[in-house]
């Protein structure tokens, strides 16, 4: 689907986390982002959406405002309403989230 160029990473996260088939996963992500299913693969629309929500991009103007990697994944967790293991581990290791809270 184009990964972070579009919404491919987000749709795949729903397949992994919730075992959603492709149509259900795309509809879910589209509804969470407030776009149509066709928009999910449109690089222009998705660049705007990902920029506004800070969900990570494949190409950014160099600046301290870049949100990618673990920062973007913290936001993706919230936007999609799922738990991302790397985010949970990061928070746990950074002392933001206790092991007990994770359980």
């Amino acid at each position, binding site marked *: *689907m184009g990964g972070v*160029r579009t919404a*491919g*990473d987000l749709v*795949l*996260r729903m397949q992994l986390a919730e075992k959603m088939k*492709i149509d259900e996963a795309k509809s879910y992500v589209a509804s969470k982002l407030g776009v149509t299913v066709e928009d999910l693969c449109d690089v222009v629309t998705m660049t705007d959406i990902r920029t506004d929500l800070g969900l990570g991009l494949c190409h950014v103007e160099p600046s301290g405002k870049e949100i990618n990697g*673990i920062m973007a994944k913290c936001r993706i967790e919230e936007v999609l309403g799922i738990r991302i293991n*790397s985010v949970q581990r990061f928070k746990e290791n950074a002392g933001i989230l206790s092991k007990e809270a994770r359980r």
Partner: protein
Amino acid sequence: MKEEKTFRTRMGDGSLVRMTEEEIRADIWAGTEDAVRCGKVEPMSEEDMEKLYDIVTAPGGVVGVSPGREIVLTNDSGGYKINVKSQVPLPKEMETLLYERCLGCDSVDIGNTDYNFKTAKGIAEREAGALQQALQVTTMPLLYGAMPDMGFYTQPDGPVGNWATLLPEGKIQEAWEAQEQAVKHSVKDITFVAEKMYKAGADGINLDTCGASGDADFLASLEACEQITSRHPDLPVEIGMAGEFVLGMHGRLKYKGKRLAGLYPHDQVKLVEEAGASIFGLVVNTNCSRSFPWNIARTITFTQACTKVAGIPVHADVGMGVCGVPMVEIMPADIVSRADKALVELGKVDGL
């Protein structure tokens, strides 16, 4: 006399061939019939055969799906296709960034270049370190992948007897026992590695090329998947197959009461589902001596039977020598894109 129009396509070994409309239609029919005969599945409808003919003969080099029909990608790259296979010296942590930022991949898996769990076990801490580093800087899902590759557990360098040599000697009981022991070793190693990767933050575990050593290999994958997902419901597992048919190297092994030997994709997916996996990687073998129309028709027939019953996403394996793709190292985009389009639009797969 006017020469009959021909279309450029390829054989299963990748060689170029020109075929007439009649020849293409005949091969689509024959490929479908072969899948029906082997898998005891329903044939593709005549309407779908017509659509497949249009895909095979579509003008242009690369073809694509209609907007809105795009699907996602997982893979078994191991994060070493660029640094090892293409000899571009690059740490695999950084290679994942190329997949994400330059190639637009939906995900990638990190793995050891010697892509099997037995080898990965010995360096699991180091592998987990690389994965953790990559997870800090990438946004897309990162899985840890390897093959169960149960042949690695056989003598002389492994702990159990080699069933491939025991069977021809008529030592059936010994071959059975060797495979049963290898399943235990394999499950132990897979779950050990998975545990390390879970703690490093992996987005999932990719059990790749499952069933390569036969039914025992598939059993190890299913049992390992069940243990991983029971212990960590938030650690998804993808099970990708080695071939379309589970070889009965043991012959008597069962999972949840179902005999594994001889299963085709539409039966494999139900067991993978029961084991708790999130994604099933479907394989249909490519016949090198047959044309692309024959191979892709056969693939779509098996795929339709599988996606029809699947309760989890199905990702078609479209690498070298599987799902209509020719048996070549460097992929011809004309055929790969046609195989992809057919798998999405006719096979109804959820990913590649």
